């Protein structure tokens, strides 16, 4: 199968599902499907840092926030000008252009944020790195709280709804394919070598700093894309959506599914999102049971439900955690 055939088929399938899905399953389930998609992007991208490169970031919500707010501001403040420039296009195409510009801006801004955080942080290891990324995530949130043009503490409202099933799952597809190809390339082997033994990797001539920063930047860019899709779906952003607890839940998705496995991250994102939604009527109790499950999984199966298991055995499975 040629590449373009695959992508074309994917676009057709997605478009067909977009047009029928909401009617088929109702708006509430549709919304959950969207949230699942956004969480898949976040979990798969976080897995690049935490699972493949063996670094530990609990600041993913920060990059997610940067993407969401950047994209929303581009669309809200640049929207009229962009629409005027693309006035010759039909409404749907205008929306697509607007959303794509927002997504690109989000990816770039989040990537820069990832780079800025990555450079200093990567001098640190293990739990120090973890706590610094958490700190950066909080600093980003507090900065957003203080920018009045994007709503500050009161939240950013009036964002047009541009993203839908089609865009979110296109984003999922691009993320999964990119990360999949990346980890199966020479870059990916460099990431994994850093995870398995940083000193040995360095001794073998792997520029560990460069690859660590690279995994941070790529991962942040996808988090930014997820943020953009999120903001343009919910039409309202609030800094409280990006607390460090959000990062915690993302980590839970990654480790429940399996560190260092794309399928694991997807499974984790689907399971966590859906289970929390299905048991919604039990309120905080579901979160109590959920945290017990997390502890149990970590004690009895620290490599996650799937571990490094993958659908395709092109390489020997590596141990999940160092």
């Amino acid at each position, binding site marked *: 199968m*040629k590449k373009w055939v695959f992508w074309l088929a994917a676009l057709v399938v997605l478009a067909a599902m977009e047009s029928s899905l909401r009617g088929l*399953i109702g708006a*509430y389930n549709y919304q959950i499907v969207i*949230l699942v998609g956004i969480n898949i992007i976040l979990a798969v991208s976080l897995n690049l840092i935490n699972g493949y490169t063996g670094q530990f970031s609990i600041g993913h919500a920060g990059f997610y926030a940067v993407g969401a707010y950047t994209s929303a501001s581009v669309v809200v403040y640049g929207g009229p000008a962009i629409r005027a420039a693309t006035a010759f296009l039909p409404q749907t195409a205008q929306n697509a252009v607007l959303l794509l510009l927002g997504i690109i801006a989000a990816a770039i801004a989040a990537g820069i944020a990832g780079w800025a955080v990555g450079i200093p942080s990567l001098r640190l290891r293990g739990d120090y790195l973890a706590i610094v990324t958490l700190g950066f995530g909080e600093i980003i949130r507090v900065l957003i709280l203080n920018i009045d043009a994007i709503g500050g503490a*009161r*939240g950013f409202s009036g964002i047009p709804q541009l993203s839908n099933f089609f865009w979110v799952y296109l984003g999922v597809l691009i993320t*999964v394919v990119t990360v999949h190809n990346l980890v199966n390339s020479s870059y990916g082997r460099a990431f994994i070598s850093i995870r398995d033994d940083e000193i040995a990797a360095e001794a073998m001539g792997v520029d560990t700093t460069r690859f660590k920063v690279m995994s941070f930047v790529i991962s942040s860019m996808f988090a930014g894309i997820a943020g953009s899709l999120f903001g343009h779906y919910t039409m*309202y952003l609030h800094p409280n959506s990006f607390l460090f607890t959000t990062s915690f839940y993302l980590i839970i998705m990654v480790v429940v599914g399996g560190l260092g496995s794309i399928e694991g991250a997807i499974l984790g994102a689907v399971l966590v999102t859906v289970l929390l*939604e299905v048991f919604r009527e039990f309120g905080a109790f579901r979160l109590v049971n959920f945290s017990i499950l997390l502890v149990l999984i970590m004690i009895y199966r620290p490599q996650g439900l799937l571990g490094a298991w993958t*659908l395709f055995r092109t390489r020997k499975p590596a141990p999940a955690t160092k």
Partner: protein
Amino acid sequence: MARRSSLFVMCLLGAALVSCAGNSSDQASNEIVIGEFGSLTGTTATFGISTRNGIDMAIEEVNKAGGLLGKQVRVIVEDDQGKPEEAQTVVTKLITSDQVIAILGEVASSRTLAAAPVAQQSMIPMISPSSTNPRVTEVGDYIFRICFIDPFQGLVMAKFATNTLKVKNVAILRDIKNDYSVGLADVFADNMKQMGGAIVADESYSEGDTDFSAQLTSIKARNPQAIFIPGYYTEVGLIARQARRLGMAMPLLGGDGWDSPRLTDIGGEALNDTYFSNHYSVDDPSPAIQNFVSQYKAKYGETPDALAALGFDSANILFDAIRRANSAEPVKVRDAIAQTKDYPGVTGKITLDANRNAVKPAVVLRVRDSKLEYVETITP
């Protein structure tokens, strides 16, 4: 290439799995289902709980009296944990999964603002009992509120400070994280200046803070005659305590966010000589209010705060509209709500104006020895 396709298929499978989960909307036709969302957990949990209590009471009353249009009323309550994005999810759920015909909620303006677009898009009427930020009802013609708005409340307290307390130099301590507080502080400041007063200090804090001594010390250095604190009771008690501790004896002023049976638990003595504007006074001798207060006390063992009263009123206004529309169809109910005029609620006579806001008088209460005393009523 097969790999890529398989991964893609996995994603779609995931999506399919979700769609299978939970699809139960079998609805008995002998009841009217309404939705309610609020913060039953999280830092502002008492708001959601008080409102729910009020709404439950109204529903119990109406069902005892035979229900509406010959049907029983059932409410489905969803907890948004005090998070705006949860508010949006649960309202979507209420509308599409539970197929409610109307929605009651939220207290906090930020959560109402997050959820309102969903109700507006789905054309389901939504009544906020107590979101006072003006932007709330600007979302669209399906969004209503039955309380006064911040510009009015700010005017009330500015009038009270100038005319009754006769103070000129006032400091403001606002909750910067809170739409309601920021909006109210701005309006108050404008009105004070128009009436010839001055704002000598304008400090801020964030919801959830516990230490306010830094802000209060800064304020103290400017020697204001009163401090306006348009926050929630959760912080106000602590602020009052810390202010008195720093030797600041001036009166403290606030808005309806102060009202809660818990306010004086925490503030205690420190709250003597403080005043706030509110939707109603429990001391009001009118039988409607006394009836409500005694029933509420019997049921929940607490004096109802304004949020409970507003929750009660919001449910009753909805019932009244359903009765007048003689239908439980969302569009007709919406039109009937919009025509609400002089409805005799616990929190005063409620008339909805063209902007779907309630026009009501406000009362000013004084705290003395852990009791709320009625001071005066200020009309629009």
